[in-house]
């Protein structure tokens, strides 16, 4: 059997294992180990298992992932989402659809201190969903707004998914965080525009809220100083090279922990919960990271990624066409798979293909641009049917809204997502502008 065939069989077996509910990390490890053994020898496999996992987890750079997780958990416990929503709502809630826009603004703010979409959706949902419903917002619209708003958690830096993408293509995390900033702003603006259009066409979906007094507005603004402070400290520190990402994440976790405790919102029980949540997501991610390493070692031996890359570059398709096909594949996969595993499974296959194509930009720029595009479509997977995790989370919170209605509520935001991805594909300069400026 040729190595290529072995690689293809391995990949097919992996996909079958995923379909039958074998946890992704475990399936990747199993196929990776057996494949590695087939391509080399039992001795070679037994040999790498001795220290591979030890050295991979010992890597200081990797510490950034659990630290950002911990920071995000502390931010949830500190209930900063509540302060954020109150502030944005005081300023724009009295417009038609304004409360929904305030929820989006709050999500963007929370996303700027939390790297997880699910956490952003969940914590913002707890705060904003009851308020939206109380003020007469339709259930489908309110759940759609919050599920979509949650995706701003990974769109705006810090973003755990972006860190994982950076690890795969060996990009600089600092640069990617810089690159994500403008697209994150565009995403926020795009969602607000979607709300404005929806309430113009169907005014009954999102009535105007009460107007806040000038004093309330100011007080609400003062209350969000920890968010602003920690964002400037962590992300500003990374942008301007004051800290390494790991150091910034550690400082952020400490600062956030202090805020949560001093505001009287996190006691021992909350601290334990935050730690256990961090433990589960960290263990899950690192199992997949380790598995991806073993799997990619196997696939590398089979030369499958290189062969695919040769086929694609010799196919006569234009580079842009190939890129769009990849993005489309990511969107489809994202409907069924979680974004982290999707990136770890397919980015190592897609990236070598792109690398040999000519997009008229440097490899470094291509890395940045493609990682941000990947992030955008990975985020879409959280709100596309049939398995949009964010939609599930918010929908279960609402209780009285059908799943179908929630997915309908998400539609305007998905359309906005498609527009944004299109714009970012057409104009790479939007993504590359800030990293170039800060270089």
């Amino acid at each position: 059997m040729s190595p290529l065939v072995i690689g293809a069989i391995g990949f097919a077996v992996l996909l079958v294992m995923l379909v039958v509910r074998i946890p992704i990390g475990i399936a990747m490890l199993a196929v990776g180990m057996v494949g590695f053994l087939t391509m080399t020898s039992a001795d070679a496999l037994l040999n790498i298992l001795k220290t591979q996992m030890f050295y991979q987890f010992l890597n200081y750079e990797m510490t950034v992932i659990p630290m950002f997780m911990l920071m995000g958990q502390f931010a949830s416990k500190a209930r900063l989402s509540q302060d954020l929503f109150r502030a944005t709502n005081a300023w724009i809630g009295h417009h038609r659809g304004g409360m929904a826009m305030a929820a989006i603004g709050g999500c963007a703010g929370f996303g700027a201190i939390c790297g997880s979409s699910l956490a952003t959706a969940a914590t913002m949902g707890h705060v904003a969903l009851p308020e939206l419903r109380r003020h007469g917002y339709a259930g489908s619209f309110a759940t759609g707004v919050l599920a979509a708003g949650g995706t701003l958690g990974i769109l705006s830096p810090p973003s755990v998914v972006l860190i994982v993408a950076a690890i795969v293509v060996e990009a600089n995390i600092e640069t990617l965080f810089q690159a994500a900033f403008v697209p994150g702003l565009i995403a926020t603006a795009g969602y607000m525009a979607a709300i404005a259009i929806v309430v113009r066409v169907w005014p009954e979906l999102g009535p105007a809220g009460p107007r806040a007094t000038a004093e309330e507005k100011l007080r609400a603004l003062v209350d969000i100083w920890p968010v602003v402070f920690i964002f400037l400290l962590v992300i500003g520190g990374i942008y301007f090279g004051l800290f390494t990402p790991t150091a910034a994440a550690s400082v952020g976790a400490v600062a956030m922990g202090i805020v949560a405790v001093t505001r009287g919102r996190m006691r021992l029980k909350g601290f334990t919960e935050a730690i256990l949540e961090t433990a589960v997501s960290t263990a899950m991610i690192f199992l997949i990271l380790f598995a991806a390493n073993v799997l990619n070692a196997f696939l590398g031996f089979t030369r499958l990624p290189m062969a695919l890359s040769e086929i694609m570059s010799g196919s006569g398709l234009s580079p842009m066409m190939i890129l769009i096909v990849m993005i489309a594949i990511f969107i489809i996969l994202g409907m069924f798979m979680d974004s982290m595993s999707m990136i770890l499974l397919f980015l190592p296959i897609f990236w070598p293909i792109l690398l040999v194509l000519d997009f008229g930009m440097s490899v470094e720029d291509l890395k940045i641009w493609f990682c941000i595009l990947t992030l955008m479509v990975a985020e879409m997977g959280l709100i596309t049917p049939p398995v949009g995790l964010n939609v599930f989370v918010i929908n279960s919170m609402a209780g009285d809204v059908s799943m179908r209605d929630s997915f309908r509520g998400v539609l305007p935001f998905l359309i906005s997502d498609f527009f944004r991805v299109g714009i970012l594909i057409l104009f790479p300069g939007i993504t590359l502008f800030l990293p170039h400026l800060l270089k």
Partner: protein
Amino acid sequence: MSDAFVTNAPPDDPAGRILWRISRWCAIAGGALMAFSAVLTTLSIALNALFKAPIRGEYEIVGFGTSLAIYLFLPYCQFVRGNVVVDFFLARASSRLREALDAAGGLIYFVISALLIWRMSVGGLELHAQKQATAVLKIPYWWSFPVLLFCLGLLAAVTVNGIAANVRRARS
């Protein structure tokens, strides 16, 4: 990543309850290690900014601490079934079939963890013999291995317990 992981009640069987308690404490210990690492990094940065005197080899301690934390997290993650699955194609399958497939996944994970225990014991002993240590603080690498092997052992026990639970539920 929902609250369900945390509020997860301890299982009914005695062995499961003990394993649940140990894995939970391990996860909390791991979290404490991480919190300690975060504070240490922050302190080092502050000391560097104020007195140009960072904590020597701070990143080695942080690397060690966090890597141990990850191993300490693994058994709890498996216990609460925190490892993501593609839960779409068989979402409407019978609970019996789903339990059987979950048991199969657990079995694969058991074999992998057993293999890792064996190989990493060898690896740890080799690192000990070679006197491998970190560059600045000379922390011997093998120091991690007792903890890490304990965690992998606990993980193996948790997978076995999980398979037993799958079988019990499939029968009932």
